[in-house]
């Protein structure tokens, strides 16, 4: 596969390491009262769609960026690639 890196252009997916569903960005608050319940869902349940899937790839043999890749799991077609850091910020993560 080829991942069109937002900064580097098309790169062979072999340079990347896959992690999984981009929902992993949304780590629950560990200090919240319902933290355990939230973390069980976060840690173990996946949508695992047959179709469009937002997922995390790490450019380990490249620039060490984590990317959010939107890829169709039936055709492997990739429709969008973003820096995970930008996505995380946009979706409300900070520090």
């Amino acid at each position, binding site marked *: 596969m*080829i991942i069109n890196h937002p900064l580097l252009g098309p790169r*062979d997916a072999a340079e990347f390491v896959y992690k999984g569903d981009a929902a992993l*960005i949304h780590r629950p608050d560990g200090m919240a009262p319902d933290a355990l319940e939230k973390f069980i869902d976060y840690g173990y349940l996946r949508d695992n769609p047959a179709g469009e899937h937002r997922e*995390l790839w790490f450019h380990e043999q490249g620039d060490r960026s984590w990317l959010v890749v939107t890829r169709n799991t039936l055709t*492997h077609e990739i429709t969008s690639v973003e820096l995970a*850091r930008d996505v995380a910020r946009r979706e409300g993560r*900070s520090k």
Partner: protein
Amino acid sequence: MTQKNRLQGGLIDRSRSYTFRFDGKTMTGHAGDTLASALLANGVRLMGRSFKYHRPRGPLTAGSEEPNAIVELREGARQEPNTRATTAELFDGLVARSQNRWPSLAFDALSVNDRLSSFFAAGFYYKTFMWPAAFWEKLYEPMIRRAAGLGSLSLQDDPDSYDKGFLHCDLLITGAGPAGLAAALTAGEAGLRVILADEDYVMGGRLNAETFSLGDMAGHDWAAQTVARLRSLPNVRVMPRTTVLGAFDHGIYGAVERVADHLAVPEAGKPRQILWRIYTKRSLLTAGALERPIAFENNDRPGIMLASALRAYANRWAATPAQRVAIFTNNDDGHRTAADLHAKGVKVAAVIDTRPGQPVSTDYEVLQGEIIDTAGRLGLTRITVRLAKGGTREIECGALGVSGGWNPNVSLTCHQRGRPVWEEGIAAFVPGGTLPDGMTVAGAAQGLFSTHAALTSGAEAAAQIATDLGHAATKPDLPQAEDAPVQITPFWHVTDAKRAWVDQQNDVTAKDVKLAHQENFVSVEHLKRYTTLGMATDQGKTSNMAGLAIMAEIAGKTIPEVGTTMFRPPYTPTAMGVLAGRSRGTDFRPVRKTPSHTWAEEQGAVFVEVGNWLRAQWFPRKGETTWRESVDREVLQTRKSVGICDVTTLGKIDVQGTDAAAFLNRIYCNGFAKLAVGRTRYGLMLREDGIAMDDGTAARLAEDHFVVTTTTANAVSVYRHMEFVRQCLFPDMDVQLISTTEAWAQFSVAGPNARKLLQKVVDPEFDLSNEGFPFMACGEITICGGLRARLFRISFSGELAYEIAVPTRYGDALIRRLMREGQEFDVVAYGTEALGVMRIEKGHAAGNELNGTTTALNLGMGRMVSQAKDSIGAVLSRREGLNEPVALKLVGFKPVDPTHKVPAGSHLMTKGAPVDAAHDQGYVTSACYSPNLGHHIAIGYLKSGDQRLGEIVRLVSPLTGFDHDVEVVSAHFVDPEGERLRA
């Protein structure tokens, strides 16, 4: 042996004669021959035996779709089983043997299977070999295994080397027939970066096998001229002998270039083959079409082949299987073969056409009818024709060309699960469904069978692609070419044949297809799996269609209703060697060497693989006969005086930024916010699921600067994890990470004299006293008169110990210096074994304990998991299953009988309780002989171990026949109070 069936003309180079051997017989052929064409020219039709019935077989085709003529090529370590004689390029001295026969090709003992064939019908083995039960494995299966299989491997290491490479282009064209050449010309002149690949060693495809002309020149001349033109274009890469084996995601294609298969041996330093990964924006499939046979009684005798093959052997290779031939066809193409052979002076006994009203030729007889039987045990001698007008006729002939129509070569279009669709007009499947990204198909591969259509469709497709990619394309002026329409009446098999072969290599007959239907194996996939139709080395290129058609006929459905033909990568079988490339032997994976490697080698160190690292395991000295002697000495001397160990392999991650401390607070389950500058702290990292991931130390060199260490094994994964936390979870933390593992050579200097030794190399302005540089202190220093270095007072061995780091290039010099300066203390270098012994004596967890299923609680560090902050893994570590009252706890073990070992991997059982899984109490993770205690010791996990100190438990290892009592003790065997490391 003379080339008695060599004809005039052809594209072979008669000025170069090659001698070769087949089954011990020496013969001669010419440059340009394949093994098959040379054998035919020499009068050899019998080239192999079929898989199941060991039927005598000759070539069915003249290409890579060949099911029958497969041989063992070359000798010794280069022996190559299952090689198609029809594609094996002849070279001087070539040696080949027929395979899957004994004792000889002409007389094969196992051809008895053929006479017993009625017992071996499709799927027979599922119904038998079951009585008595034990006999299957003892008798039947070994028998079957011996009989099965085709060629044999030499069992010697492959002496040749293979390369892998990467190519980039705008357009990959697969197949250099008329369509491919016209396309390459168009795209090349439009300025596209073009790769033109063809599996053949001469480009031109069918043009080299036909007699008709393009414009005013012979087809093969036009091909040669066009190839020459293409080679002159800098933006076109012409790749003959290159098979595109697979279409993968996003325009990545795999291709194998056979660099040296036409040579006796590859040139020195050069590969035999190259696996190319081709990255292309677009691709054009112009792989042509494959003729298909007709199934009839005994249609598999040597001498019976596809009409197009018969024609190709005559026109391109000037060879014929016999001087008297016949043709069996259901379409016009068969007549073209007859005409060409006649023109070559081969006697055409008759053309049998299944269709009515065929023109009578003046040169040979044309009959309407069907072939209902053939004769000739090792080669065709006679055919029997059932005439349409009634009656039968026997015709003497040594070869028969069969033409059942053409199948577009759609293989590559199926590699991403694209399903071909039926086209009635040519009675064949054409590319359909989802084609691989950016693939276009042209020419015969698309079902456009005339040369004219091939040329124009190729050029048009290329022009369109060029335009799509923003290049101005002008169609090249293409020569005039034949444009005959396809005239075909589908005819798949002669009915009521007893044994009509559909899949010749796997011996699947029309009857087997019927039987499959009768037993409800109707779906195409069931048919293939039950009868093995299309599962042979040709992937059914010449057999799938007929099987499908016969099934449709029986099921009373149309062909597309029954299913379609699918193909998987690779297009043709591909050598394992080329898929592995250079990654074999010692080059399988890169080697990582420590800074002291050269020095350690000089000391005669024994090395061990730790991941990709090579680490010194121990340093044998003269007179030491066992590894234990060396390791014991290294341990005792370190604890007695001082020892040095290269610990560079531990991961080092530079963590900087104003939020560095806050970041580490997230990463580690224990607190780091309050760690003072100049101090180091042990840290335990959890995975988000609450299981221990890794441990190490973090040294605070400045308010905003830490150096984190990881275990050797987890250096990469921990860095990846930290980047995930930084970029994805806390993107607004001001923290920057970079690995410095290899930038610093790091040595552990351990033992009572460690300080004294270091004081001899550390520059005097740095105070190493216990007060000035206490346990867990860290700092940047200089040594040996100004070399920048880092010093950490941390201890894995439990001794007064330091880790000193210098720029890697000075690592070698530093260890030499330390060893020299240490002579007065009898300093020793110690390896990973002694390191292991000392850490077990101290009860420190390492890889064996951090096995991915253990928690902080198991490690006895439960209280380290801070409840006051939100660190990775803290929450899920609180689940009930990870906090059982009777949890495994890390404890130590010592043998009740001091002479016994305490082997790792053994399981713990309560005394008096049964020894079985239900009563399993835990297991030993790490064990060693402790020279300090004079007996073996171990650490491991025991249920509620921390409350069972002093208990005698039973340690069993039925696997290795071990069963002895051990005492549960604290894991801290040596200096439990830790006075030494604070000294």
